[in-house]
């Protein structure tokens, strides 16, 4: 235990940790956004979401290293594959259980998660992989080590979050998604074909899961259980933000990423993931609308 030596407290303001937190927070924010969108309209916790992230990362990895495509093209392929993939999984599996309880769907999604993870192991093996690219030098800005990959993660996240915001606020279909997430029956009364909306939400949510996995793979390594192990901070972000609330989930994502990275100042690095769990528990114990709830929708 590092303890509360003033030196460590000072380190909490170290811009390096803040920057690292922003990078990790960006990834969690994007991932949480996709998960909360899916939850909002389908009302079930999709445990396989983490593995959607991994599948997106692996397809991008394959396009990038096995077919030598540029990383940007590879990332787009990963997103498209996972968008369609999420829809296919829904048609093959979840749709059959949609009228059942949320618990049934949750259990089914655990099964889907297990299958996807093992398919990845069969196709790509159990070892860890990396996207191809030059070994990067780490340029310093004002004393902060800033990797080009990290800059890419932050910028792409902002683009994804901004694009989704515009979709949900400015387009007819996006407003309908928020409406259906508010109340499905009222959406139907308005003449909105909610089954068709569900299709769009899987496409959007799947694409977001895919890119979140790719960003995660860019920041760390690509492993079969990379998404699954990332689930806890992602769930924590969704719950802190108020389940089904997109802006809340994003705020929660950044908050958790930054808290988690700053925590290494006071607790050993190995325990860093516990921060997500801690915040998840705090979120569950606090009001169910979430800490950021209300004010952010």
């Amino acid at each position: 235990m590092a303890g509360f030596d003033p030196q460590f407290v000072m380190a909490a303001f170290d811009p390096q940790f803040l920057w690292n937190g922003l990078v990790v927070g960006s990834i969690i924010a994007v991932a949480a956004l996709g998960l909360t969108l899916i939850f909002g309209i389908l009302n079930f916790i999709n445990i396989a979401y983490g593995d959607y992230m991994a599948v997106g990362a692996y397809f991008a990895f394959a396009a990038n290293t096995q077919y030598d495509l540029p990383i940007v093209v590879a990332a787009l392929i990963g997103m498209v594959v996972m968008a369609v993939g999420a829809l296919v999984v829904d048609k093959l599996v979840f749709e059959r259980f949609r009228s059942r309880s949320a618990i049934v769907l949750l259990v089914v999604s655990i099964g889907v998660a297990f299958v996807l993870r093992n398919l990845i192991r069969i196709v790509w093996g159990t070892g860890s992989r990396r996207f191809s690219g030059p070994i990067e030098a780490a340029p310093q800005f004002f004393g902060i080590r800033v990797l080009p990959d990290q800059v890419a993660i932050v910028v792409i996240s902002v683009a994804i979050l901004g694009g989704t915001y515009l979709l949900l606020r400015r387009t007819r279909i996006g407003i309908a998604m928020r409406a259906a997430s508010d109340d499905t029956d009222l959406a139907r009364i308005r003449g909105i074909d909610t089954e068709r909306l569900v299709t769009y939400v899987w496409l959007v949510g799947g694409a977001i899961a895919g890119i979140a996995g790719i960003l995660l793979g860019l920041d760390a390594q690509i492993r079969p259980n990379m998404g699954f192990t990332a689930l806890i901070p992602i769930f924590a972000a969704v719950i802190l933000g108020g389940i089904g609330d997109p802006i809340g989930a994003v705020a929660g994502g950044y908050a958790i990423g930054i808290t988690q990275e700053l925590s290494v100042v006071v607790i050993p690095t190995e325990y860093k993931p516990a921060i997500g769990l801690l915040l998840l528990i705090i979120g569950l114990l606090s009001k169910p609308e979430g800490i950021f709830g209300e004010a952010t929708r």
Partner: protein
Amino acid sequence: MSLLEVSNVESGYGDVLVLHGVDLTVEDGEMVSVIGPNGAGKSTLLKTVAGLLEARTGTVEFAGEDITDTPAEEIIYHGICYVPQTTNIFGNLTVIENLKMGAWALEDAAFEDRVERVYERFPVLEDRPNQRAETMSGGQQQMLAMGAALMLDPDLLILDEPSAGLAPRLIDDVFEKIRDINDSGTAVLMVEQNARRALREADRGVVLELGQDRFEGTGEELLDSEEIAELYLGS
């Protein structure tokens, strides 16, 4: 031929049957109030007409078409707009977004026109297009609920307890709006707890009890009937 014709409808939830053969008609341009004790099945009847519940037996016809098995998302295209008792606005959407969703079934081009007309009827909405709906007062929310349902200029407006939970002054407001809407030619089918008021306003009243229509008559007939006064009007 009536505008709406509900014949011998049975409906309910899961294994529980709530409506045991209900008949009900609404004529073109008419205002009909359905009254009855709590739990009588009034809301269930409206949900069944609106397609949220499936009729087990019986038929629902609208403007000569059989709409018995028409799902909720298609009902609006027949010219029926329904304002449920609970959750009748999208709380997380703004006022203008709620009106946009009210006009979902409409071509985009007609939106501006319709929204102007709804603003004319409900000026309170024009003052706050970007306010999130759930932060409005109960009265304003009820106006929004009706405004959104009127975006399509329906032939039949179905209202489930429009005055529930409102202060007396606001109740007058709401009934005045409903009167207005009906005077402009829209038929209204309304369920109300405020039974006397609802019967006074309506052309016709129907008393529902234990999932069956018990009495039917003009508003005045029902108001004047001692039996009904004793049983359902609490006096």
